[in-house]
C-alpha cells in the first residue's frame, strides 16, 4: 500500500502531464503483479469493489470520532476519504499492507463486512496510506489522472501504441496479467470482447480570422449539438455505448441499446429528444446521473442519437474512406434505423464563410452551440489532428453583474470563497440571477477571496453575504426561463469572464437586458 500511496501523492501534487506519466510509469514498472494491475484498474475506473458506500464509511468513522467534530472536519477538508484518513485515530502499529490482498479480500467479502474490514486496515496504516485505501475502496480516485493518461503511461512501458491498447481495453479485466505480459514483450492478448471501443476523432477550435485562410468548398458543415459525444457499437449481439474516452455507459441508456439492431460502429451525439424537439442539456444530465434509470425517467427523458459518422458497417472498416463517402454510407444506414432513436445530423448549405457565420449567429434551436466543419476528403483518424475537423463555437453572451454572496469551495478550492452568486438591478433592488465558480485565475481567486473576507455583511454557515461593491463580467452560453429561480431566469454555464475592480456598482446591467435575451415563450 505504501508504494501506491506514494504514487497517489505524486499524482496529486505534480502539475505536469509528463511528470505524472513518469510517476505512473515508474510505479507500473516496479510494482509486482497482481498489485499493479489492481492499481491500474483503480486509476482507470475499472476496479469493481463497490463495497464502501459513503454511508458505510460515515458509520465506520462515527464509531470512532464524534459526529459533530467529524462534520466540522469534513466541511473544512471537503473530501470524505481525506477527512476520514486524517481524523482516524490509529490503534495499531503501521505496516506496509499488501494492496492486492486487500483488493481480493474486499472482492470476496460479503458487503456487510466491508466497514469492519476497512476499519481494521485503517488501524494499521499511516495517514497517506489510509487515504489511498479509502480512495481505492470508494472507487472515486479523482487524483488528477484520467483513464486515458493511465493508458498512455502503460503504452510507454513497451512497444504497443496507445490506440492498440485502447482497442483491446474492453476485452481485458483486472489485474491485467496478459496485458502487462504483452507490453513487456510477450504475446498479444486475443481481443475476445465483442463491440470494442475505437478511439474517436476530435476537432480543434477555430475563429473567423483563421477561417479566412481555408477554402469553404473543401468543408462540409453541420450544427454542433449540445449533448455528449457517443460511439454506438453493435457486434453480433453485443451492444455498447461508449463515451468519447471509451467509458462504457450502455447501462444508463437501455432505451437506445434496445434499438441498436445493426452491425457496426456509429459516431454521434447523445441527446434527450422528444419527437423533433431536442431537450436542453440539463435533461440529458439527469439521464447521465442515473446508472439504471427507472421507467418514469425513460418516458419523461427519452434518449436519442443524432449521428454524424460511421466507422464500421456490416463488417467493413470505413475509417480510411473520405468523409464525403462515409457520410453517404451513413445516410443509407440511418434510413433503416428507428427514427425515434436515431436520426442524422443535417448538413448546412453554405457557399462562403459569411453564409455560415449568418447561420451560426441564428441557429434554429437553443441546444446548438456552434457549427462543426469537416473536410470532405478527411479520413477518420484517432485523436485531435489539426486541420480536418474544426469547431466554431457560438460567442458567449455577457452581462455585468454584482457579487452578492460567496460560498466556500470544496475539493481543490476548499477554504477559499470561490462560488459566487451574482445579481443585476431590478429597479433599485439587486436580484440574484446566477452562480459562477470558474473563469478566474488562481491569483484572481485569491483576490476575490480577500475581497469576500473584507466585505462580509453576514455569515450563514459556509455562505457569506457581501457588501454590493464588486462588478463582474459574466459570460454564459444561453438563457432559459425558470420557475425555480426567483428571477425567472436560468443561465447556462455562467462563468466570470472578467473582474471589474474599477466599475461602479450602479453601472451593472438591469434585468430587462437579460429578459430581452430570452428565447421566445
Amino acid at each position: 500500500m505504501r508504494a501506491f500511496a506514494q504514487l497517489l501523492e505524486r499524482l496529486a501534487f505534480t502539475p505536469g502531464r509528463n511528470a505524472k506519466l513518469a510517476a505512473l510509469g515508474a510505479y507500473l514498472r516496479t510494482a509486482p503483479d497482481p498489485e499493479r494491475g489492481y492499481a491500474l484498474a483503480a486509476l482507470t475506473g475499472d476496479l469493481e469493489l463497490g463495497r464502501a458506500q459513503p454511508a458505510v464509511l460515515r458509520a465506520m468513522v462515527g464509531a470512532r470520532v464524534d459526529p459533530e467534530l467529524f462534520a466540522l472536519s469534513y466541511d473544512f477538508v471537503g473530501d470524505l476519504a481525506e477527512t476520514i484518513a486524517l481524523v482516524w485515530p490509529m490503534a495499531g502499529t503501521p505496516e506496509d499492507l499488501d494492496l492486492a490482498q486487500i483488493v481480493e479480500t474486499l472482492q470476496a467479502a460479503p458487503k456487510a463486512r466491508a466497514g469492519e474490514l476497512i476499519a481494521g486496515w485503517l488501524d494499521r496504516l499511516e495517514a497517506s496510506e489510509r487515504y489511498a485505501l479509502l480512495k481505492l475502496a470508494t472507487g472515486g480516485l479523482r487524483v488528477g489522472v484520467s483513464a486515458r493518461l493511465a493508458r498512455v503511461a502503460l503504452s510507454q512501458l513497451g512497444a504497443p501504441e496507445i490506440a492498440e491498447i485502447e482497442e483491446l481495453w474492453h476485452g481485458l479485466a483486472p489485474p491485467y496479467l496478459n496485458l502487462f505480459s504483452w507490453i513487456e514483450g510477450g504475446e498479444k492478448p486475443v481481443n475476445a470482447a465483442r463491440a470494442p471501443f475505437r478511439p474517436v476523432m476530435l476537432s480543434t477550435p477555430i475563429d473567423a480570422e483563421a477561417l479566412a485562410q481555408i477554402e469553404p468548398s473543401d468543408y462540409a458543415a453541420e450544427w454542433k449539438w449540445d449533448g455528449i459525444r457517443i460511439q454506438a457499437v453493435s457486434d453480433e449481439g453485443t451492444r455498447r455505448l461508449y463515451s468519447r474516452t471509451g467509458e462504457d455507459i450502455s447501462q444508463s441508456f437501455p432505451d437506445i441499446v434496445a434499438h441498436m439492431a445493426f452491425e457496426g460502429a456509429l459516431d454521434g451525439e447523445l441527446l434527450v429528444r422528444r419527437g423533433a424537439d431536442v431537450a436542453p442539456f440539463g435533461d440529458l444530465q439527469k439521464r447521465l446521473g442515473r446508472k439504471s434509470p427507472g421507467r418514469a425517467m425513460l418516458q419523461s427523458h427519452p434518449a436519442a442519437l443524432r449521428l454524424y459518422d460511421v466507422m464500421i458497417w456490416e463488417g467493413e472498416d470505413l475509417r480510411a474512406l473520405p468523409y464525403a463517402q462515409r457520410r453517404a454510407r451513413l445516410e443509407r444506414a440511418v434510413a433503416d434505423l428507428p427514427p425515434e432513436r436515431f436520426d442524422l445530423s443535417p448538413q448546412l448549405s453554405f457557399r462562403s464563410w459569411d453564409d455560415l457565420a449568418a447561420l451560426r449567429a441564428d441557429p434554429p434551436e437553443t441546444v446548438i452551440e456552434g457549427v462543426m466543419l469537416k473536410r470532405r476528403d478527411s479520413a477518420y483518424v484517432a485523436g485531435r489532428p489539426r486541420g480536418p475537423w474544426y469547431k466554431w463555437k457560438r460567442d458567449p453572451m455577457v452581462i455585468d453583474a454584482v457579487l452578492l454572496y460567496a460560498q466556500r469551495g470544496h475539493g481543490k478550492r476548499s477554504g477559499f470563497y470561490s462560488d459566487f452568486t451574482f445579481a443585476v438591478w431590478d429597479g433599485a433592488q439587486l436580484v440574484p440571477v446566477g452562480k459562477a465558480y470558474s473563469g478566474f485565475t488562481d491569483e484572481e481567486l485569491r483576490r476575490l477571496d480577500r475581497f469576500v473576507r473584507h466585505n462580509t455583511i453576514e455569515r450563514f454557515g459556509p455562505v457569506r453575504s457581501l457588501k454590493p461593491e464588486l462588478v463582474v463580467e459574466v459570460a454564459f452560453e444561453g438563457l432559459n426561463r425558470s420557475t425555480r429561480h426567483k428571477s425567472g431566469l436560468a443561465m447556462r454555464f455562467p462563468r466570470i469572464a472578467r473582474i471589474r475592480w474599477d466599475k461602479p456598482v450602479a453601472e451593472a446591467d438591469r434585468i430587462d437586458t437579460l429578459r430581452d435575451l430570452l428565447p421566445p415563450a
Partner: protein
Amino acid sequence: MAQPLLIPRPEGLYCPLGDFHIDPSRPVARALITHGHADHARAGHGAVLATRQTLDIMAIRYGAEFTGQRQVYEGPLRIGQTEVRFHPAGHVLGSAQIAVTAQGTRIVASGDYARRATPSCAPFEPVACDIFITEATFALPVFRHPDPRVEIAKLLASVKSEPERPHLVGAYALGKAQRVIALLRAAGYDAPIYIHGALQALCDYHIAQGIALGDLRPATMDKTEARALREAIVIAPPSAFGSAWVQRFSDPVISFASGWMQIRARARQRGVELPLVISDHVDWDELTSTVEEIDPAELWITHGREEALMRWAALHQRVARPLGLVGYEEEPE
C-alpha cells in the same frame, strides 16, 4: 460582581483594571504584545510592553518609531490594579504568554503557541490559571502535525532525486523560515542555504541572538548563476512566488512549509508540488492536551476553528466561550 479582568472589544482584548490591551488590532494607548507576527504586533500604539526580542522584531519590521514608548519586560510588574507576568509560548523567537492576575483571578492570554522543541525559541511553559485564552488555528481533529524531521527528510530526498531543479521553500519571514533552516541543519544539511531578501534582517537577528543557522546566502544571483545551481534550497516568503524574482530559477520545485499543507486542496490551490507540514502552532492533540494539562476553570478561544474546540469542550464538560475577536489572520501560518 467583580469587574471582568479582560473584555473582548472590537479593537482587541482590553483589561479595565490595568487600562491596557493585549495584541490589539488597532492603535491603542497601551498595548501588551505576545509576539512579533504582524496580526498580533501592529505599529502605532502609544506604548508597547513586550519581551526585548519582540520589541526588536517590531523595530526591524516597522522601523524604530513603531510606538510612542516602549518597555522591555524584565520580570513581574504591576499595571494599575493587576499583576502581569510573561511566560514563554514556544511559538517564535521572543513569543510569550501574558498572565494577568487581579482580585484572586488569573487569566493567561497565550497568543499563538507551540509545544514542540525548536532551537529558535524557549519552550512553552504551562501556567496554572483560572481562564486560559487559546488560539484555535489548527483546532480540528484532522490536524495532527507529523514529525517535522520526517518532512525535512522528504525535502532532502526530493533535492537528491531532482538535483537540477532548485527547491523553493515558502516560509514566513518570522519564525517559520528560521525553523526550517534550523531543521535542515539538524538533519545534517550543511551546504549554503539561499534566502530571499525579505528574510535577511530577521535571519540576521536570529543569528545575533545566538541561534545558529549556518551558511546563509542572499538569493539574488542572476539567471546564469541560478541555472548553474545544483541541489539548491532557497527559502522565500510565499508571496515571493508570485513575483518576478522567481523567474531566475528554471523549473523550480515549489514547496511550502505550513500546517495548512496537511490539507491536499490547500497545497494544490497554491500550486505547491512538495507540501511540507511544518507548523509553529499546536495541532489538535497538542491543543487539547495543553488545555487538559493546564485545566483552567474556563477556556476562551480567540481565533481559528472555534466551533470544533467549543464542541470538544462540551464533550469534556469544560466551560468555553469564543471571543469573536477580529483582525487576526485566518491563515497566520
